[in-house]
């Protein structure tokens, strides 16, 4: 049997994996990274490219006053008390350094900063996510200390006599390979959006949702850690992101006109939720509606307020692609999306009246998104509807870890030699989700895992 040895063995070639691999290499460790599929990038490369950072130069240039403390409290608030506060603190304390590290490694952020789900101030830092992974992969390769093995699937964690995790058994081109790690094994293998059976086990009401993610996201890391008694958390909070067109196969990203002032109505033409909530909560609410679908209703002004530099707010491109339903009147729009005309007209009228009179519309909506932005009426033709359902882009739950990214077993004890970072871990998001915190978590936690490996 082929064997290989390194200091840090990373399972998974997404953002968490490469952030860890490069950080470890910078510290002089020898790293092997295994990627199950033929291409690196995973779900990270397919994502919307949003990272949540606070206090950055980009925010200052955009006149945005933000801080690690505000980010910390926002993360706790959006997680509805279900987050692991220690992990949230790790995120907040290390995010700025991670942003600067990404910039130093050639990652280019768009100059515009937008506000999105769960953010009191605009803090979406946008990148081309596939390019970000390429930059880190390139830097890792140039370090001379990182070997990447594609189409190599880790199957089992290997324990030494004392119980320490010392390597993995992997499959490579039909052969079994043993890989040993002198310092640690890092699970950065993503979630399990492509294991529908496992998803069904935790959230059966999501059977009808759209699932989008890296092809390799089948829960490999979770299962391997489970086999060693690892604990998991937040499985009840797997949620889809609201705003995915239910039948369009071209765009994988959500469109969130609600965060620019649109309302969401169901097939019966009625609003059903405070549209400023986290898009995870909106996704959950949407899945409770008939056919698991809703329509984001907006007017010309909201359409024009879109931002084609931020994928989730790029309305113009989706309009060009024919994904918006357009009509000169709300009556006609109702006919085209087959909702009862009078109900839709009454809903929009009631919403507009509340906004114009400075009252809080039904469901307690006070802002465009979270605590940010003033509500606006929907009154200038043409009118648009964006059919929307929930898309599960990530599972956001997973292994219990501590602030050093050590995986804990069901008795709360760290499993020696086993680290985890990225989508495979639970604890950061809690009950809901802030835009940009999943990619942010991947980069930040990946780097911390590498720092922990140095100490082992």
């Amino acid at each position, binding site marked *: 049997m082929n064997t290989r040895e390194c200091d840090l063995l990373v399972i998974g070639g997404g953002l968490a994996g490469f952030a860890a691999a490069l950080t470890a290499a910078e510290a002089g460790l020898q790293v092997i990274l295994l990627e199950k599929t033929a291409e690196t990038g995973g779900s990270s490369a397919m994502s919307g490219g949003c990272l949540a950072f606070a206090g950055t130069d980009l925010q200052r240039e955009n006149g945005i006053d933000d801080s690690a403390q505000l980010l910390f409290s926002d993360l706790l608030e959006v997680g509805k008390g279900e987050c692991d506060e220690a992990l949230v603190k790790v995120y907040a304390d290390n995010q700025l350094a991670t942003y600067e590290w990404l910039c130093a490694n050639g990652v280019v952020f768009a100059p515009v900063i937008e506000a999105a789900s769960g953010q009191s101030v605009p803090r979406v830092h946008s990148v081309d996510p596939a390019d970000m992974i390429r930059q880190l992969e390139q830097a890792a390769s140039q370090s001379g200390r990182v070997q990447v093995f594609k189409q190599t699937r880790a199957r089992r964690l290997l324990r030494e006599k004392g119980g320490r995790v010392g390597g993995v058994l992997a499959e490579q081109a039909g052969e079994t390979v043993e890989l040993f790690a002198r310092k640690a094994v890092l699970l950065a293998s993503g979630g399990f959006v492509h294991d529908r059976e496992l998803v069904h086990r935790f959230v059966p009401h999501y059977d009808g949702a759209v699932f989008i993610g890296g092809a390799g996201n089948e829960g490999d890391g979770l299962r391997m850690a489970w086999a060693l008694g690892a604990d998991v958390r937040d499985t009840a909070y797997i949620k889809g992101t609201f705003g995915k*067109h*239910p*039948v*369009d196969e071209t765009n994988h990203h959500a469109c969130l006109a609600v965060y620019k002032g649109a309302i969401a109505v169901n*097939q019966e033409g009625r609003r059903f939720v405070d549209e400023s909530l986290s898009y995870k909560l909106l996704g959950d609410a949407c899945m409770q509606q*008939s*056919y*698991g*679908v809703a329509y984001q209703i907006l007017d010309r002004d909201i359409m024009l307020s879109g931002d084609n530099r931020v994928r989730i707010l790029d309305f113009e491109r989706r309009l060009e692609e*024919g*994904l918006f*339903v357009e009509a000169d009147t709300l009556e006609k729009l109702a006919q*085209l*999306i*087959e909702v009862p005309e009078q109900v839709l007209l009454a809903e929009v009228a009631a919403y507009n009246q509340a906004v114009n009179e400075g009252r809080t519309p039904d469901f307690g909506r006070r802002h465009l998104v979270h605590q940010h932005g003033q509500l606006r009426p929907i009154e200038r033709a043409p009118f648009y509807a964006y*059919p929307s*359902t929930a898309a599960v882009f990530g599972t956001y739950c997973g292994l219990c870890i501590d602030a050093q990214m050590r995986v804990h077993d069901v008795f709360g004890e760290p499993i020696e030699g086993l680290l985890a970072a990225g989508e495979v871990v639970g604890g950061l998001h809690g009950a809901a989700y802030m835009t940009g915190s999943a990619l942010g978590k991947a980069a930040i936690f990946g780097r911390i895992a590498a720092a922990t490996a140095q100490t082992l």
Partner: protein
Amino acid sequence: MRILLLLAGVTDIRFPLHALAINEQGLIEEGDNARRILSPFDEAALEIALKLRDTRDNVQVDVLLLGGTNNEALLRTVAALRPDSVRRLDLQPACLWDAQFTARQIADLLAAEATPDLLLIGREFGDLDEGSIAVMLAQRLGYSLFALTQHAVWQGDTLCLLRERGTSEESLRVSGPLLASVTNDRRNKLRHPLMKNVFEAKRMTFAAVTASAGAHTGLPLISLEAERMVERGGTCQLLEGGIAQQAEALAAYLNDQRTQA
């Protein structure tokens, strides 16, 4: 106005091509794993019909979809867009390579039904790029033909069909029964179905009609082979440096190519 759509579907080339063979009767047999989707021209014809119905209460859109592999899925795809009716059209026998014979089969069937005011057909119906089925069908039915239609609009109560020819756009006022073959255009990109209708289409059953014209006595198909794979070649060069450097490198490359030519 009654609009009848003839839709055929094409093989979905995003997936490996399925097995094809000629059986003892000289007919094409396709493997069960064949995937068919609407062609861009089918989609264009469907969208034109739906758009015409969107703005008029008295427009009826009926669809005849060519039978064949995975026809259930294709029927449901069309039904989710809510035409007034969708039926499967079985050609008996199916000899799509013989345009004259196919046109006769369909014309005989349509002659026995209520006459549509407008017959829309994708320009490559049956996957014959030359579009001859549409031409021959119009002739058989005694319909006027307007080929390569790109767009249709109501002008008052009059229907106008439009197409581009060279640098001009031709507009035709429809005054009698007409067959229009349709090509794709940015104005007739097919809409997406509503989820509500996707769900409802999953529960539908579909009627079938058979178009037969006795035994096939026309053009015999004697062989059928998989298309040769096209070998792609060429070199790729990444331009590096700033914009000016890249432009300079590109200009030098193009000049070099011209010199070689």
